[in-house]
C-alpha cells in the first residue's frame, strides 16, 4: 500500500492524520460533554473554598452549621448530577464515534476491489475494524473529557493559587513545564513502539486465524507443538514490546509524582515561612495545600491521557491508510442486456513481476459452449476472474458484445454473470440465503436453480429444509454438496453467462451428467465457459481452449485438437482408459 501512496503526486497526498479530526462531526456532543465536565469540575473547586471559609469562619467565631451543610450538599449534588450527565454523554459520544468509524471503514472496504482486500490483508483489516477503532474509542471516552477538564483544573487551580499568593504560586507552577517536557520526550520515543505493537496484533490474528482454518491438518499431522511455537514467537514479541512500553511509564509516572511532591515541599518550606512571617493566613495555607493536590492530580491524568492519545494516533494513522486508499469508481453506464459474446484482446496479467497470463486473445460466441483445459497453474482461473472483474488486465482489453468491460454498469453487469468458484465459499446463513444470494432472486428462479443443481433431494432430506443454517467449516455439508450450492447460487441469478471453475472436480460423474443436462434444458440461452480437467464431458463443446503456463496453445473442437494439438492429445491419452469404461458402461 505504501507503493500506492508514493505514486500519488505529493500535493495530493493525504496530510498526516490528526486524531482530533475524528471529533469534528460530533462538535455539539463534544461541546456538551466538555461543558458538563467543566461544570462538575468547576463546582468541585468550590469545595476546598467552602472548607477553608468554614475554618476561617470558625476561627472568627462566625461559623454556622446550616450554611455549611446547605452549601456543601448543594455543591455535592450538583457535582453528582453533572458527572452522571457527563458520563452518559461520554459513553454515547465515544460509542457513536466508534460505530460511525466502523461503518465508514466497512463501507470503504466494501467498495474496494478484490485485489485490494488481498493486498491490504484481511488480518490487518480485522485489527483495523476492532482493536484500532477501540483505541480511538478509548481516546474519546477517556481522553477528551479528562484532557479538557484537566487543562481546565490546572488553569483554574493555578489562577486560584496566584490570587492567594503569586510569588509562592509561580514557584510551584514551575513544575508544569518540567512535567510537560518529560511527557513530550517519553511520548516521542513511545510512538514507534505503539506502532509496532499494533503490527504484532495483526500477526497474532494471522497465526490464530491460520491455526483455525488449518485445524484439520494440524490434527492429522499432530502439529500442535509447531503451531504453539509459532504463536509463542509472536506472543513473545508482543510481551517484549509491552515491557519496553511499560519501562517508559514506570519511569515517567514516579518522576511526575516526585515533581508534584517537591511542590508540596516548597509549600511547606516557603509557605510555612510566610505564615511564620505573618504574610499568609493559616486558612490560606490550608487552601494552598488542597489546591496543590487539585493541581497535581490532573497533571498526572494528562500523563495517562497522552498514552491514549498516542495509541489512538497510531491507530488512526493505520485506519486512515485504508480510508485514503484510492477507490476504483464504477464509471460504467451501459446497462444493456448481455448477449453472451466475449472477447479477450491481447490481455496480459502480471502479479508483481510474474506473468500469469501472456497475450491472451480469444473469442467466445454467444450461446455456445466453451471449455478451458490445461495443467495446474496455467492461468485458467485468472481468465475467469478477468471476465467477472475480480481481476483487471495489466494490459489489453476485454469486450462483452463488442463493448469494453469497464464501460458496463457493474451492478447490472454482474447480475448477468454466474460464477461458480473452484473452492467452496459458504456463508453462515440459511441455505435459502446462500442460494438466493441476491435480493432480486425470486422463489421461482431459486427453485429452478435448486432443481438444476440436483439439490432438491438433499434439501428435502433436511428437517429444516431451505431454512437450515449452514457454514463454511460446518460438518453438515460434503464437498460435492457445497459445490452444488455454489452452482445453484450462480444459476439463481438467471445469468446470461455461466462460468464454471472446475465444477466437475467434486461432483460424481452421474450427478455431473444430470446437472449439465439440466442446465441445457432449463437455461437454453446460456453461454457457458467451463474450466475442467475432464475431456469426456466437454467433447461435444463448440470450442475447447488448451492453456499452459499462461498461454493459449490451441483452440478448436475436440476433433480439431486431436489432430493439431500434441498437448491435447497427451491430456486425452491420460484419460482414455476410463473414457472407455465409461462409454462401455453407458
Amino acid at each position, binding site marked *: 500500500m505504501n507503493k500506492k501512496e508514493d505514486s500519488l503526486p505529493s500535493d495530493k497526498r493525504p496530510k498526516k492524520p490528526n486524531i482530533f479530526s475524528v471529533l469534528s462531526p460530533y462538535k455539539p456532543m463534544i461541546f456538551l460533554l466538555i461543558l458538563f465536565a467543566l461544570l462538575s469540575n468547576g463546582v468541585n473547586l468550590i469545595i476546598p473554598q467552602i472548607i477553608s471559609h468554614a475554618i476561617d469562619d470558625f476561627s472568627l467565631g462566625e461559623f454556622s452549621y446550616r450554611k455549611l451543610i446547605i452549601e456543601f450538599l448543594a455543591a455535592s449534588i450538583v457535582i453528582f448530577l453533572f458527572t452522571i450527565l457527563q458520563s452518559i454523554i461520554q459513553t454515547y459520544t465515544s460509542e457513536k464515534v466508534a460505530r460511525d468509524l466502523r461503518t465508514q471503514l466497512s463501507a470503504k472496504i466494501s467498495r474496494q476491489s478484490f485485489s485490494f482486500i488481498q493486498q491490504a490483508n484481511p488480518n490487518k483489516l480485522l485489527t483495523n475494524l476492532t482493536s484500532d477503532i477501540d483505541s480511538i474509542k478509548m481516546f474519546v471516552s477517556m481522553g477528551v473529557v479528562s484532557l479538557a477538564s484537566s487543562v481546565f483544573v490546572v488553569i483554574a487551580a493555578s489562577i486560584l493559587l496566584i490570587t492567594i499568593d503569586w510569588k509562592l504560586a509561580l514557584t510551584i507552577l514551575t513544575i508544569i513545564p518540567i512535567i510537560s517536557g518529560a511527557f513530550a520526550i517519553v511520548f516521542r520515543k513511545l510512538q514507534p513502539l505503539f506502532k509496532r505493537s499494533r503490527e504484532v496484533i495483526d500477526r497474532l490474528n494471522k497465526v490464530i486465524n491460520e491455526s483455525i482454518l488449518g485445524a484439520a491438518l494440524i490434527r492429522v499431522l499432530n502439529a500442535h507443538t509447531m503451531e504453539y511455537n509459532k504463536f509463542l514467537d509472536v506472543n513473545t514479541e508482543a510481551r517484549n514490546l509491552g515491557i519496553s512500553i511499560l519501562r517508559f511509564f514506570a519511569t515517567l509516572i514516579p518522576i511526575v509524582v516526585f515533581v508534584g511532591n517537591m511542590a508540596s515541599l516548597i509549600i511547606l518550606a516557603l509557605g510555612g515561612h510566610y505564615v511564620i512571617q505573618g504574610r499568609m493566613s493559616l486558612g490560606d495555607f490550608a487552601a494552598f495545600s488542597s489546591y496543590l493536590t487539585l493541581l497535581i492530580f490532573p497533571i498526572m491524568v494528562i500523563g495517562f491521557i497522552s498514552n491514549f492519545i498516542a495509541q489512538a494516533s497510531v491507530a488512526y494513522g493505520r485506519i486512515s491508510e485504508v480510508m485514503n486508499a484510492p477507490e476504483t469508481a464504477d464509471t460504467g453506464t451501459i446497462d444493456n442486456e448481455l448477449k453472451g459474446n466475449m472477447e479477450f484482446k491481447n490481455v496480459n496479467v502480471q502479479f508483481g513481476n510474474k506473468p500469469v497470463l501472456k497475450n491472451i486473445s480469444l473469442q467466445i460466441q454467444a450461446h455456445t459452449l466453451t471449455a478451458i483445459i490445461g495443467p495446474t497453474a496455467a492461468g485458467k482461473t485468472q481468465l475467469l476472474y478477468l471476465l467477472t472483474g475480480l481481476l483487471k488486465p495489466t494490459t489489453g482489453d476485454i469486450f462483452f458484445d463488442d463493448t469494453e468491460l469497464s464501460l458496463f454498469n457493474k451492478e447490472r453487469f454482474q447480475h448477468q454473470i454466474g*460464477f461458480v468458484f473452484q473452492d467452496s465459499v459458504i456463508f453462515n446463513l440459511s441455505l435459502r440465503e446462500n442460494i438466493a444470494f441476491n435480493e432480486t432472486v425470486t422463489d421461482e428462479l431459486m427453485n429452478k436453480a435448486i432443481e438444476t443443481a440436483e439439490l432438491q433431494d*438433499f434439501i428435502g432430506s433436511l428437517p429444516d429444509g431451505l431454512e437450515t443454517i449452514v457454514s463454511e467449516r460446518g460438518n453438515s455439508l*460434503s464437498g460435492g454438496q457445497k459445490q452444488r450450492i455454489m452452482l445453484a447460487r450462480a444459476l439463481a441469478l438467471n445469468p446470461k453467462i455461466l462460468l464454471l471453475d472446475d465444477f466437475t472436480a467434486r461432483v460424481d460423474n452421474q450427478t455431473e451428467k444430470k446437472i449439465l443436462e439440466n442446465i441445457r434444458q432449463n437455461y437454453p440461452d446460456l453461454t457457458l465457459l467451463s474450466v475442467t480437467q475432464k475431456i469426456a464431458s466437454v467433447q461435444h463443446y463448440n470450442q475447447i481452449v488448451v492453456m499452459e503456463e499462461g498461454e493459449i496453445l490451441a483452440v478448436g473442437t475436440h476433433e480439431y485438437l486431436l489432430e493439431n494439438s500434441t498437448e491435447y492429445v497427451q491430456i486425452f491419452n491420460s484419460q482414455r482408459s476410463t473414457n472407455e469404461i465409461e462409454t462401455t458402461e453407458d
Partner: protein
Amino acid sequence: MANYNLNIQKGQAAPAKSSVFNTIKRLLTLMGEERKNLFVALIFIFINSGLNLLAPYLLGQAVDKYVVTHQYQGVIQYSLILLGIFVAALFSGYTQSQMMGRVGQRMLFNLRNTVFSKLQDLPIDFFNQNKAGDLISRINNDTDKINQFFSQSLVQFMSSIFGMIGAAVFLLSINLKLGLATLAPALLIWVFTKGFSPLVKKLNTANMKSTGGLSAEIQESLNNFKVIVAFNRRDYFRRKFDEANTANYRSAIRAGIANNIFMPVYSLVANIGQLVVLGFGIYLIAAGEFSIGLLISFIAYVTQFYNPLRQIAALWANFQVALAGWDRISQILVLENNLQQQAATQTEKKSALISFIDVTFAYVPGKNILNKVSFDLERGKTYAFVGPTGGGKTTTASLIARLYDPTSGTVLLNGADIRTISDSQRTAKIGFILQEPVLFTGNLRDNILYGNQCFSNLNDEELMRELNEVGLDGLIERFENGFDTPINASGDNISLGQRQIIAFIRAVIRRPDLLILDEATANIDTVTEQLLDDILRKLPRSTTRIIIAHRLNTIENADEIFFVNSGTVTRAGSLSDAVSLLLNDKRES
C-alpha cells in the same frame, strides 16, 4: 458429538456462579511463577503507599508543631525528612510500576499461550462449532481486557486499597470518633458496589459477546470477499456488518453507562464524607477535643481516604470488565478434548491394518452418516472409496484418522483400538491428504515440512535428495522459485491444483504406512495426476493407500473398491461393478 459451541453452552450459568475470589484464585494459579514477583511487587506497592501516606502526616505535623508555633528551624528539619521520603517514594514507585507492569505483561503472555494451546488441544469438532472471528476476539481482546486490569489497574487498585487502609488507620488513631464518622459513608459505597457489580459484569459480558460477533462477521465477510464482489453483494457485506455493528453499539452503550455509574456515586459519598469531617470536626473543636491544625491534616487524610476510593470506582469497572473477559476465556479453558487417549485394552486378533467393527457415526444425533459399518483394510493394498457426494466417504476417512470417534463401534489400527494409540504414533502412521488443501503463510519449504520434525533440519540439498527418493523432486520444479516460492495462507496467489500438489508432497514425504487421499487430486490435471499416480505406486510395498475420488481414472489401479453410500460401505467386485453401482444406485441420502 460433544457440545463445543461457546455461544450456546448448557453450562452457561456455571462460570457466573464462581465467586470473585475463586476467579482470582484461578487467575493466580495461571500466574505460576509470577506469584513470587507479584508478592515482591506488592511489598513495594505497600512501601510506596506507606511513604505516600506518611508524607501528609509529617506535613500536618510540621504545620501543627512548627508553622503554628512559628519555629522555622523545625520546618526546615521536617522539609529535609520529607525530601528523603519523596526520594524513597520515587524509587519504590519506579520499582513497583516496573514490576507490576512486567507481571501484567507476562501474565497476558501466559494467558494467551494457555488459551492458544488449549485451542490446539481441542478436537476438530470445536472448530466446526465456533467461528474464527469470535475465537480471535477471545484470544486477543478478552485477554487484553484482563491485561489492562492487571498491568494498569491492579497497581492503582492495590495502592489505592493500601492507601485507603492506611488513611483509615491514621484517621482512627488521630481521633477515633471523628475517624469512625468519616469512614461511615464508605459503607454506603460497599452496599452499592455489592449490589450493582453483578449487573455491570453481565452487561460487559454481553458487550464482549457482541464484539466477538462483530469480529466473526468481519472475518467471514473478508475471507469470502470474492463471492461478495462477483455477486455484487457489497451491500450484503455492509448490511451484515451494520447489523453486528449496531448490536455492538447498543451493548457497548449499556455496558459503558453501567461502568461509568460508579464514579459519580463514589464522588458523592466522598463529598459527604468530607462534610461529615468538617462539621463533626468543628463540633469537636468547639467541645475542646480537637485542634485546628489536626483538623487541617485530618481533612488532608480524608482526601487520602476518599481520593483512592474514587479511583477504585473507575478501577472497579475495569475489574468487572476483566472478570467478564475471564469468563469468556474460561469457557474455552474448561472444555475438554473428548478424543483422549484411552488405556490399552487387549488387542484383537486381527491382521488387518485398519478394521471397522460395527461403526456407527452421526455428526448430529439421529442422523447417521455411517450405520454399523464393518470392513478390513490389508497392508500394502490400494483401496478406492467411491460413492455419490454426501455419501460418507470423507467421514469414513476422518474416522480412520481419528478426527472424530465413532458414535458406537470400534476402529482398529494394527489390531488395537485406535483410541488407545497415542496421537504421535497414530499421526506418524497415517497420512491424510484433506479435501481442502491447507497452506500456511511462509514459503514452499515451510509448507512441505509443515509438522514434520524428522526433516525440518535438512538443508535444501538434503531435502531434495529425500524428495528424490520418493520421486517427488520433479514437482518442486513446478514452482517458480523452488523451495523459496512464497506461499500465502489465503492462497490466491497460487492455484488450487498447485495447493493440492503441495499437500500431496507434504503427506508423501513422510512415508506413512497408510496414505489417505480424499479427492486430493481433484483439481489437478490428468497428466500431472498420472505422475502422482506413478509416485504413489513406487511407495514402499507395505504402504496402504486409500483413494477417495469421483474421477474413475484415479481409482482404476485399486486392488479393491468400496462403495460408500447411505450409511453403508460395500465391497464392489471390480471397477465395472463399482461403475454400475454408481450409475444405477438409488440415491437415498
